[in-house]
């Protein structure tokens, strides 16, 4: 009886959109939609997945019927955009937890109404961390204008500015990082005006008073929060004349150090600071006993830029003794490794593989690779998260069940955050694009979502210890 009533209600609503009652002819395939949410897996606490129907002729009237376990909602699309209310969406998610939501789209083109095959949105029981922090910046070369750090509430569309460079003399803000997805322990850098590394400790930001040559760049937190590993990179960039990769970013030199926030000292070892080797992208294991990083034999740069292959290595770390152990090489190719990130449960390591070099965000062939730390030789299918374009900077959710990746798959240039569900065996389900109230914003928006990082709690950036005044550029 309940189902009949619901079906009746759906028909009434559909008729309200101008769709005649009865069955419209079937198109015989799923609708083309943007973002592609067909077959994705989402957490039960995600904001509504609005989408556009991009089928030829479907720019006008559209009807979408969402249904899950006896609950249905029928919606009229406007200008081809299907939006669902937050309350209805929550009910659907709750009903579909561990199962799926079916979405049937009908649209009216020149020849009348037609109905597409329904597609599924799988709903996982694993929740995702509530917040995602990223930097918004143009995917540029040497010039930037406005940029900033922003926090997105994944349960809604609310995006909160954390720190915009309008407030800091239009400088460069980069490499924000959190300790174990905890927003109360954060580090980031600023370049140009107010240049330095800023560390959030006990609710206040300190500007680190430590000098290294080259400067500290990519951070990796020790889970205890006392130590932060940094790579010291002498970074340069050049531009390809006829390659699908536009920009080539490379290091002339790089080492890895560990910063002790209690003593304000920098620790290192010849094993991770060798002139004969480029060491970069440090990342601690969640037990704090192992420091992962990437290393490559030093080559003459930039002449041999495309011959550099980074291996995935690890070195033991004893936090009590503040000492390093021996080096282990986990992965030597094929390809070149960057951005190793260990899942908080310590089972998997997610990294980027490109054909060469380390700055994979500019390498169209960059893909993610999952390494099972208990069985390194096991091949794990990553087709759910990888695409034909750049898939690079990634981070884990605190429950190790979600990974976010920066991907250029939409237009080849502007990075967008895709979130993928990671199953217990390390395989990933089809990733979904971060939902927006108006999904068309991704076509108009002229900034990249850079360094997406999950946090369990709300990020708060209070007063920064800005000493020198930022003079305007003339």
């Amino acid at each position, binding site marked *: 009886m309940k189902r009949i009533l619901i079906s009746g209600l759906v028909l009434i609503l559909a008729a309200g959109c101008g769709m005649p009652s009865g069955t419209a002819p079937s198109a015989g395939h799923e609708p083309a939609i943007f973002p592609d949410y067909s077959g994705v897996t989402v957490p039960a606490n995600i904001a509504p997945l609005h989408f556009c129907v991009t089928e030829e002729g479907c720019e006008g009237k559209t009807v979408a019927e969402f249904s899950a376990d006896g609950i249905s909602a029928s919606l009229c699309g406007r200008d081809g955009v299907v939006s669902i209310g937050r309350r209805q969406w929550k009910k659907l998610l709750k009903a579909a937890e561990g199962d799926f939501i079916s979405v049937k789209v009908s649209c009216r083109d020149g020849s009348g109404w037609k109905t597409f095959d329904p597609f599924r949105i799988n709903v996982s029981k694993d929740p995702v961390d509530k917040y995602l922090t990223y930097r918004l910046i*143009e995917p*540029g*070369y*040497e*010039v*930037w*204008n*406005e940029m*900033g750090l922003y926090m997105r509430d994944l349960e809604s569309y609310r995006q909160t*500015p*954390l*720190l*915009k*460079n*309008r*407030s*800091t003399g*239009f400088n460069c803000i980069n490499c924000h990082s959190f300790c174990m997805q905890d927003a109360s322990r954060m580090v980031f850098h600023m370049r140009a005006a107010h240049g330095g590394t800023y560390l959030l400790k006990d609710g206040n930001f300190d500007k680190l008073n430590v000098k290294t040559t080259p400067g500290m760049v990519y951070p990796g937190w020790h889970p205890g929060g006392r130590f932060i590993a940094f790579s010291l990179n002498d970074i340069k960039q*050049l*531009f*390809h*004349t*006829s*390659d*699908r990769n*536009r920009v*080539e970013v490379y290091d002339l030199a790089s080492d890895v150090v560990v910063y002790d926030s209690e003593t304000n000292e920098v620790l290192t070892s010849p094993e991770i600071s060798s002139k004969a080797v480029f060491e970069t992208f440090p990342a601690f294991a969640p037990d704090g006993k192992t420091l992962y990083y990437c290393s490559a034999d030093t080559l003459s740069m*930039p*002449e041999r*830029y495309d011959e550099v292959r980074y291996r995935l290595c690890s070195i033991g770390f004893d936090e009590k003794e503040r000492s390093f152990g021996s080096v282990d090489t986990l992965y030597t190719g094929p390809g070149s490794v960057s951005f190793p990130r260990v899942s908080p449960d310590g089972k998997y390591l997610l990294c980027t593989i490109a054909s060469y070099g380390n700055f994979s965000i500019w390498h169209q062939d960059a893909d993610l690779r999952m390494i099972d730390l208990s069985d390194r030789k096991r091949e794990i299918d990553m087709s759910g998260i990888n695409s034909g374009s750049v898939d690079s900077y990634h981070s884990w959710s605190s429950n190790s069940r979600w990974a976010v990746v920066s991907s250029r798959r*939409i*237009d*080849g*240039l*502007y990075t967008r955050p895709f979130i993928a569900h990671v199953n217990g065996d390390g395989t990933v389900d089809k990733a979904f694009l971060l939902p927006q109230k*108006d999904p068309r914003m991704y*076509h*108009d928006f*002229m900034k990249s979502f850079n360094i997406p990082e999950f946090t369990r709690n709300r990020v708060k950036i209070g007063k920064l210890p800005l000493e020198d005044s930022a003079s*305007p*550029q*003339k």
Partner: protein
Amino acid sequence: MNHMMKKILPAIYWAVLTLLLFAWLHAGGRFHFFFMEQTALFANTPDTLLKAFSLPSGFVSMVSDFLQQGFFLPCFGAAVMALLLGAAGVVSYLALRKRMDSVMVCAALATVPAAAGAFILFDSNISCSEPLALLFLAFGLLWYYSLDGSRSNTVRIVAAALILFWLAGAAAVPFVIITAFEELFRKPSNPASLIPAALVLALVIICVKAQMFGEYRDLLLPDNFYNLRLHPTAQVYIAWFSLPAVFIIALVCRKTGFMKGKAVAATAVIALLTVCGAFVLNAKTEKPAFYQELDFYARNGRWEDLLKATRGRNERNHLCSALKNLALAEQGQLADKLFSYAQTGVEGLYLQWKPVPYVSILLSDLYWSMGNITLAQKAAFEANVSYDNHNPRMIQRLIDTNLAYGQYDVAEKYISILEKTWRYRSWARGRKAMLGDDDAVMADPVLSEKRKCIPDTDVLSGMYGENPTELALIAESNPSHKATIEYLGCIYLLASDLTDFMDLVDKYYSTEVLPVLPKSFQEAVLICAEQHPGAEEKYDISPEVLANYAAFRDFYLKNKSNSGLQSQLKARFGDTYWVYFLAN
């Protein structure tokens, strides 16, 4: 003055003043307003309206962008600016008249903000936002002075202040200050008079704390109407404060009885001095105005006009020289006529990179002309970023470079942005038809040539030094792209690097890349032939060049001990490479 005259004379006065402003702005700022059109992009979508109301002062920004999109029309920019300032003057006058009897005093006082506005209108870092915000402020004050002065107006002032704050941002600040003064003068013991000011201050603090604005000055002062990366000039503040200042002066005069008889003369002098000051200070803006003129010609492919405009002006300026040489290259005359114009060295062919928007724009044009699509794209991207992604010309360049590369997805993104504008919609739709269609790109005379310029062999731009290596690769890739090889040869000539020049000529002469030697190349070959006799026989040197060189050589040998030789050579042979080579 009878009642009729009191109405007619001010109307005539403001009409004449507005017309004078228009005439002055049009005469001095023709190219400035064309340039302003390039700094804003108005998307004709409902989203634009929504965004306009999402931030304080978003509305004036939107209206400003809306108006600026029409500035490509001759006279339109000057007319809009003159009308905005004239309207601000008229509305201020009407507001002052609500409390003052003297038509002349009110007219003279209200002239001050209108005239002071002229201080800022040739500043390329300012949009229409500031005059618009001044107009909103004037309307706010007119509304306030129309209220019944015998009762408390706090609630209504609060409402007006909030509306003003949301529509025109910083305009609410002088509004609440003036109204607070008025209310306190009216009823000194009423603390409620300060509520609107306190509320606006609280909103300013909230907006800055919420990171909607970077600094307090963005909402307390007119900084948000200026290029956000720069601090406004003194003129911007003068223009901004002149309007509230006249109302404060009027208020003090009214309440204290000060300056009754002398008020007309004093205020008229102030207004006059302001106008004169505007003229004097504006004279200093000649340099950007000249660049804006050249940029206009370059943007519209008016190369002859560009060459005419530069003749005899700013001859030692690299930027001017680079534009001149760009005009020659685009006309296929770079290597033939290079020395018909004063040259400033290699930097006069292509400028050194600087993180400055206008340099990036020029570099994008230069690289595009040379056929270096990689660097044309890089410079266009950086220029567009510098203009907050609002430079239509650079977006067009990004579309073209991406079409040339066959990167259709990102080209589509930029096309969709221009499709939402009125002015560039049809151009964008023309380009849209090429998406994913290599044949359509190759059928386009410009894009096909540029696509052919993309070298088959990838190199990292700049890895092997500067431009020359890349230009050689481009020239080999597209021998029919004459500008590439001409730029390359001219770089060697201006650097007086005849060894590399001769290597270039030896390698490419009589090939598709360099079937004949242009005039300046022939002249350079003759210099090399001095050390390697017979070298000229390998090349087809024209009889005119040979005869001219014989005359030059003869003259030089006869007069080489003459102290005025350089100037004599310049007078007789100034359009040849020989004179440049001797001087450098």
